[in-house]
């Protein structure tokens, strides 16, 4: 026993271990090299650009030649009268999307899974994907139309006013239309996961007398749980990423109160003066938050069940 330990210590230091491992698994490390090459080239080499967030970037001087300004951009952003508002709106929209938008494709996938009739199943699947292919610009055009004073939604909900001018409804419109756009498309991954569940498990459950609901709860959902958890963690990692395009197309000054998010705010500033330093700084802030959220979620997930990203 002792001898073994000593042996381990001798060869256990980092580089030696690595070299041994490479010798032991040569073909694997060739593949590793390919993957490393990609990430280092296209992700790590350009990473020095992060310092733009701390510089007053001037194209003529280049990244290295531009002046250091430290936390100036961050101060500008957080010092804004609207900083809290846009951060709050960003987080709120993300969380609504998470709470309502995350379960929707799962439910839909489960429902589709229960369909016996193959033809109907195919139709539902194909049609549910369609909204994903319509570009945001068009969807927003439709929404503007439907939400206008005498538009479809205004009539449906009995509000005789342009819905997009009422700040209290913005988040609902934004999140609901987002679900409409992506729900069908997002079922794909779950449907794929469902096909991976061992049918014999269903057999066993049926023998035990489980009805459809029981089967779903004890076989299906646990069966796709790894997928669900992975996607959930990844989704949490996008909490600061409310893209500006759809916001810009749907908002107007009357709804700034609830609709103005970080990206749209930075975009408007960019229209006045495009400052790479500023936008990089805000982007960095977003990334830090996103990353922390993912680390937290991953840790939690690892404690609760076995699935985690790393």
């Amino acid at each position, binding site marked *: 026993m002792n001898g073994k330990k000593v042996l381990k210590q001798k060869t256990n230091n980092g580089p030696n271990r690595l070299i041994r491992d490479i010798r032991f698994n040569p073909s694997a490390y060739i593949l590793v090299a390919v993957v490393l090459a990609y990430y280092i080239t*296209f992700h790590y080499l350009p990473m020095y650009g992060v310092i*733009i967030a701390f510089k007053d970037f001037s194209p003529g001087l280049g990244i290295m030649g531009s002046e250091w300004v430290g936390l100036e951009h961050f101060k500008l952003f957080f010092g804004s009268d609207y900083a809290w508002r846009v951060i709050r709106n960003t987080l709120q929209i993300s969380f609504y999307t998470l709470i309502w938008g995350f379960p929707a494709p799962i439910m839909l996938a489960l429902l589709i899974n229960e369909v016996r009739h193959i033809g109907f199943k195919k139709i539902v699947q194909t049609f549910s994907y369609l909204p994903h292919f319509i570009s945001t610009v068009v969807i927003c055009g439709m929404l503007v139309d439907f939400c206008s004073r005498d538009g479809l939604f205004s009539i449906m909900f009995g509000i005789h006013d342009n819905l997009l001018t009422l700040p209290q409804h913005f988040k609902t419109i934004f999140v609901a239309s987002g679900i409409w756009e992506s729900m069908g498309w997002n079922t794909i991954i779950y449907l794929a996961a469902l096909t991976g569940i061992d049918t014999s498990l269903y057999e066993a459950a049926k023998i035990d007398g489980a009805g459809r609901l029981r089967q779903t709860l004890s076989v299906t959902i646990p069966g796709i749980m790894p997928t669900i958890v992975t996607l959930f963690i990844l989704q949490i990692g996008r909490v600061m990423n409310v893209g500006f395009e759809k916001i810009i197309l749907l908002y107007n000054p009357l709804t700034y109160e609830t609709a103005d998010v970080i990206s749209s705010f930075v975009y408007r500033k960019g229209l006045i003066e495009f400052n790479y330093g500023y936008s990089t700084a805000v982007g960095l802030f977003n990334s830090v938050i996103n990353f922390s959220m993912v680390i937290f979620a991953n840790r939690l997930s690892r404690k609760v069940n076995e699935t985690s990203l790393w």
Partner: protein
Amino acid sequence: MRQSKGERIFSVFNAVILTAIVIVCFYPIYYVLISSISDSSQLAAYSGFRYKPVGFSLEAYKQVFKNPSILNSYKNTMVYVSVGTAVNMLMTCIASYVLTLKKLVINRFLNKLIIFTMFFSGGMIPLFLLVKNMGLLDSMWALILPVAINTFNMLIMKTSFEGIPESLMESARVDGATDLRILFQIVLPLSKPILATMVLYYGVANWNSWFNAMVYLRTRALYPVQLILREILVTSNALSLSGDVSGDIIDISKSVQYATIIVVTLPILLIYPFLQKYFVKGMTAGAVKG
């Protein structure tokens, strides 16, 4: 198969809900379709629920096909999508597989390295400079190589690969197979659903992509069709940065915009039926779980 009463009710209920969803999901594209064959000036008068064309006119389609950029950019897109998706799949499969090899010493480090890139990047400028220095500017490879692996997709694929029993791969290794062979001869054949999913995801993403083209391409002749579409859609709304009032601009009618969308989007919609067979339940399930 005998269904209990409860199950029958559920089936009906399910069918109703799903039908409603189908209708709601179909509506946007139906809307675009009928608007594209509508008379453009009548179109805006009609602010409300459209269930049939307002006036009838194929004028919009005629204009779309007269556009000299459409045909060429379509060809470009076909090329970008096929080559791009192939590269994506190859690289992603390799990366996903590598990350499942937990026994490798480098594995944990690699995991962290990769996930870190999902959140932090140097921004557009350094990447642009890199692409420029590699001589890839204004070429197809600028659209393909920097985004060869979508880490999000890759992690999902990894999760799926992890479902394959270790035993299968171990026995192959014992027999002397290289990892590449294990990947191609064992892992991939057992992962058809996830592969089909990723081909779809990457294929559609490549088809829809316009942003990278906008950043890296300088020659209009190389533009993909989505960028052309975007130009047409963006000129008259809030996103247009050139919509200032210093030039005499002619509005592009809404029906032309819609017709362009149909022309550009239709082909991709027809792809799904081909991939559907891979989503059939239980195809390989039995073989997998030992």
